[in-house]
């Protein structure tokens, strides 16, 4: 090599440096997205109007954004919980579908009485999501099967299960599309009188504070931090590694399941094929931008919900598909990952590291 340099891992990154690189990465990613949209034919002077004004500052748009944010908040929490203990949950969609199926089952089979069935539906949804993540957790701990692949494959299984129900036993005969019958009036979550916004928002926000308490205040959260950074150290220092891992991972599944339950009980009022679109990746992006801090999941999820909301406008007016929103998320995530290099390493040009 003409010149020699060595990467040095920074032992202590100053707060200023890490926050500057982070916001720099975010800004760079967003600028690239704006350039992409302009290139795709969205007029530059309409960007602010479409992407910010309409979805955050207009009553209709804001109501829709907040409604969309309900499952996104939970998906973000799900990703943050699992990633805290280095469990790669790439199957948030699957757990969400299982949650939706479980909630729908409670409604279809009329479990309990009308007055509190909505609560049973949500509990069933959490149980469904938990069950769906318990399988990969067990396979990982018992057989060392990569949870990365198993969670994802189980998402496909859950999707097939849903199609099986929608095209078979649960199909609404009065509809031409394969969707389930609507849930009855008392089973629906109350509307807040602001667009389609429903009480599920409080459930999501409540979960943010619950997870915040678990991850940042409780003993479990402290243990999970050690477990996530180094399992050997955690085991050696006598932490109940198994319990911590199981609780955190199952909670992750429960959050995703609850997202599915809220979609059925609050937004869609039925089971449809389009419930979980892209929730896994969105959840991971939200958790990453929120730096895996539960509180920050809340604003980040609302902003991403706004982007999804604006995406619907882009689709109608400029013919851009949903893939555009996915592309924009990918660009922002990669840009953040690249910029982290500046925070994580310094380049030492003077000398080769001695062996």
């Amino acid at each position: 090599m003409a010149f020699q340099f060595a990467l040095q891992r920074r032992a202590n990154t100053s707060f200023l440096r890490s926050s500057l690189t982070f916001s720099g990465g975010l800004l760079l990613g967003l600028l690239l997205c704006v350039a992409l949209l302009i290139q795709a034919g969205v007029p530059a002077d309409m960007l602010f109007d479409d992407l910010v004004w309409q979805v955050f500052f207009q009553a209709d748009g804001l109501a829709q954004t907040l409604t969309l944010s309900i499952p996104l908040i939970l998906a973000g929490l799900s990703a943050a919980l699992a990633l805290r203990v280095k469990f790669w949950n790439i199957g948030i969609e699957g757990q969400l579908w299982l949650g939706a199926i479980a909630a729908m089952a409670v409604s279809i089979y009329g479990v309990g009485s009308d007055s509190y069935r909505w609560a049973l539906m949500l509990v069933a949804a959490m149980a469904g999501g938990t069950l769906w993540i318990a399988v990969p957790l067990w396979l990982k701990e018992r057989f060392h099967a990569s949870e990365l692949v198993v969670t994802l494959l189980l998402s496909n299984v859950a999707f097939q299960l849903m199609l099986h129900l929608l095209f078979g036993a649960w199909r609404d005969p009065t509809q031409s599309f394969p969707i389930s019958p609507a849930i009855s009036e008392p089973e629906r979550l109350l509307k807040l009188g602001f667009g389609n916004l429903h009480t599920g928002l409080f459930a999501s926000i409540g979960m943010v504070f619950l997870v915040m308490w678990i991850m940042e205040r409780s003993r479990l959260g402290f243990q999970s931090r050690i477990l996530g950074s180094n399992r050997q150290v955690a085991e050696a220092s006598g932490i109940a590694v198994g319990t911590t891992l199981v609780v955190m991972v199952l909670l992750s599944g429960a959050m995703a399941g609850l997202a599915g339950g809220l979609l059925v009980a609050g937004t869609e009022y039925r089971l449809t094929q389009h419930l979980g679109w892209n929730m896994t990746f969105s959840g991971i992006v939200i958790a990453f931008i929120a730096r895996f801090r539960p509180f920050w999941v809340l604003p980040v999820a609302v902003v991403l919900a706004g982007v999804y909301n604006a995406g619907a406008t882009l689709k109608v007016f400029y013919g851009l598909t949903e893939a555009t929103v996915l592309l924009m998320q990918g660009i922002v995530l990669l840009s953040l990952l690249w910029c982290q290099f500046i925070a994580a390493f310094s380049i030492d040009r003077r000398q080769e590291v001695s062996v």
Partner: protein
Amino acid sequence: MSFISFWFASIPVSALPLLLACLGLILSERSGVVNLGAEGYMAVGAMSGASVTLLTGSPWLGVGAGVLAGCCLGLLFAFSVAVLKADQILSGLAVMAIGLGLSGFIGRHWVHQPFNGMTAPDLPGLQQLPLLGGLLFKQPLLAWVSILLVIVIAWTLHRTRIGLRFTAVGEDPAAADNAGISVPGVQMLAGMLCGALCGLGGAYLSVASAHIWVDNMVAGRGWIALALVVFARWRPGRALIGALLFGAVDMLLPRLQAQGLQVPVYLMGMLPYLLTILVLVLATRSRYRDEPAALGVTYLRQDRH
């Protein structure tokens, strides 16, 4: 009899795109890098293949474009993990999203337009052979290229200097570095080849079998290929066997339906995924731990000891 020969003849349609992606992932993982971008590379490969075939009328140019597109995206990922030392899994997911997003974004102009893709060459006598005639001789030339690639990659990995370098970097990057092998260099090359092979797999889907591009065409094949790598124990030859087995299960359902059998379609649709999980568990349980020792580890020269 005709049921079996039709079934056999349809297996490569499902098996070969998986095989190609799996070969790419084997190269990447052999050099110690977990690459979750496969789904994205396949999507841009399929989309570029279809659009260039539509533009030029030449399926081979389309396939070339698919390979190139996958390669570029693979390079983006490799730069991220090998040079900037970013997290492999998150980078892979980001590149997957970019690939899927780009294919939908650019591909919106080419979606749902049928074209004249690759067809099987005319071999009248051989195609009528019982059982295996369709499987072996009713395939586009690209099928044979894929099989050839298995041999070339297996030979390269096990018998050549560059192949040994891949393995050395994946097993012990520090030792490889001491021996004068450029770890980022090898990982960049592996990343590009992985993207290119996945892109070829995607192009196979659109140019050689479907002759059309639709959104979500890859439909999770990139992830199944990832599981197949474990089944294949990081060996190209076994990847061929695994892909054919998977293709056989995958194609059984449409054949049964064509026979007019009443089957629970969606429950049967779970089979390939459940089978893959089973295989994954069995493969990781086996006594042979063939997983590259440094798989998923970010190597930094200063961490040597």
